[in-house]
């Protein structure tokens, strides 16, 4: 209990003292996870829409694959990305290992199936007559698809929020491909892991509390955005 209270106190101190190192870690966390979620949304929403709205051979297999990839262990993704980006790997020449870009790649691979899978679920809940109504009003196949995605916007937004939650809380892959380098690739989760390993529980707890508050604020803003739009 004392550790928790000390953690709370330190969290407030870290934020109010304008500790530059803390702010840099927070900023990098948001930057990496934000970019990964943006890329994952750009890939996952169209992929989910395609799988959900089109009939093609192998559709079911693709759906099972997406569902399987939704639960991929981050360390496996970290390992694969590491192997690709390491000096001896096929993308070694890009020299991306232990950079924020490598962390973005790993998180994008982690989050894309989550957004795609939840988009499929959201679109399957849309009234089937919506597509017919849109087509009868003169919509082409792209416009019909876009109309259905818009109808499922709350579900799609929930997919994005879930993706962000997964990305910001992720530690396994970013520590492998980012290396937790101070001032360069240290994010909140890797910092928490480090502080815990060093026995600085109150600092680790403080960072954890900041992470929770940040996630809460982002979710709250997205929720209000949809509520305002829905009014």
């Amino acid at each position, binding site marked *: 209990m004392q550790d928790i209270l000390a953690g709370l106190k330190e969290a407030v101190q870290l934020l109010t003292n304008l500790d530059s190192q803390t702010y840099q870690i927070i900023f990098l966390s948001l930057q990496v996870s934000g970019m990964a979620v943006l890329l994952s949304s750009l890939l996952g929403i169209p992929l989910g829409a395609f799988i959900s709205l089109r009939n093609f051979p192998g559709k079911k297999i693709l759906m099972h694959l997406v569902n399987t990839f939704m639960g991929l262990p981050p360390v496996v993704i970290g390992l694969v990305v590491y192997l690709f980006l390491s000096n001896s790997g096929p993308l070694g020449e890009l020299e991306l290992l232990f950079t924020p870009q490598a962390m973005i790649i790993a998180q994008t691979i982690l989050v894309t199936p989550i957004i795609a899978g939840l988009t499929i679920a959201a679109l399957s809940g849309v009234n089937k007559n919506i597509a017919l109504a849109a*087509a009868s009003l003169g919509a082409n196949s792209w416009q019909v698809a876009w109309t259905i995605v818009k109808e499922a916007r709350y579900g799609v937004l929930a997919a994005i929020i879930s993706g962000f939650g997964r990305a910001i809380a992720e530690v396994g892959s970013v520590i492998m491909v980012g290396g937790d380098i101070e001032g360069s690739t240290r994010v909140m989760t890797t910092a928490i892991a480090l502080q815990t390993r060093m026995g600085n529980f109150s600092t680790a707890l403080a960072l954890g509390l900041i992470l929770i508050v940040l996630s809460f604020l982002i979710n709250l803003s997205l929720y209000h955005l949809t509520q305002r739009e829905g009014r």
Partner: protein
Amino acid sequence: MYEIKGLQKDYEEKRVLDINYLRLEKGKIFGIIGPSGVGKSTLLRILNLLEKPQQGEIYYQGNLVGDNEKERLAYRRSMTMVFQQPTVFNTTVYENIAYGLHIRGERGKKVQEKVSKTLELLDMDGYEKRQALTLSGGEAQRVCLARAVVLDPQVLLLDEPTASLDPYNVGMIEKMVRYLNKEKDTTVICVTHNMFQAKRLAHETMFLWEGKIVEKRATEDFFAQPLDPRTKAFLEGKMIY
């Protein structure tokens, strides 16, 4: 407006439509009646070019409708359909009605004017900002009709549009259909289970039975002196199906 030759439509193994010949002239209101499951809605979807038949030719405005999607879309944009279940988009009434105009690239004040005028015609002034999903069934169906009417279609296809609506909403919708036909020369093809509605609205009525057009005549003659015994049995409520 339409000419259909040798049309056949199957769902899996079952033949749902088998029409040798059907001609629907421009500027008329056609009523289609028949028991449930005889292919009435399928015929409407084919006329709306939302579905393709396995066999047969469809001529629209004298042109043979082919498989070219661009061409089909161009034809489809001159017609529209209102379904039995009021299906509104999860947005405002204004956005619902402006939908078809927006996807045709229309924007700005012109759209606002068209939407306002259409709402006025359907006695729905001031509904613009209401959320469509909060409307009653009758109001939602009027929005669906407004959404179709605002496009100024050459053909309006109605699939039992007033089923389960109260008399006021039925009256409003029928009034609008008559207005469109009279003032805009819109061809209306209406599937209905309500024979009185067919009598009130249609210039010509046809009876569809097991995917075939059994009889098609001027509405007055159709109801007064049906020629086919199946039509007669259906109108007298004696048909067992």
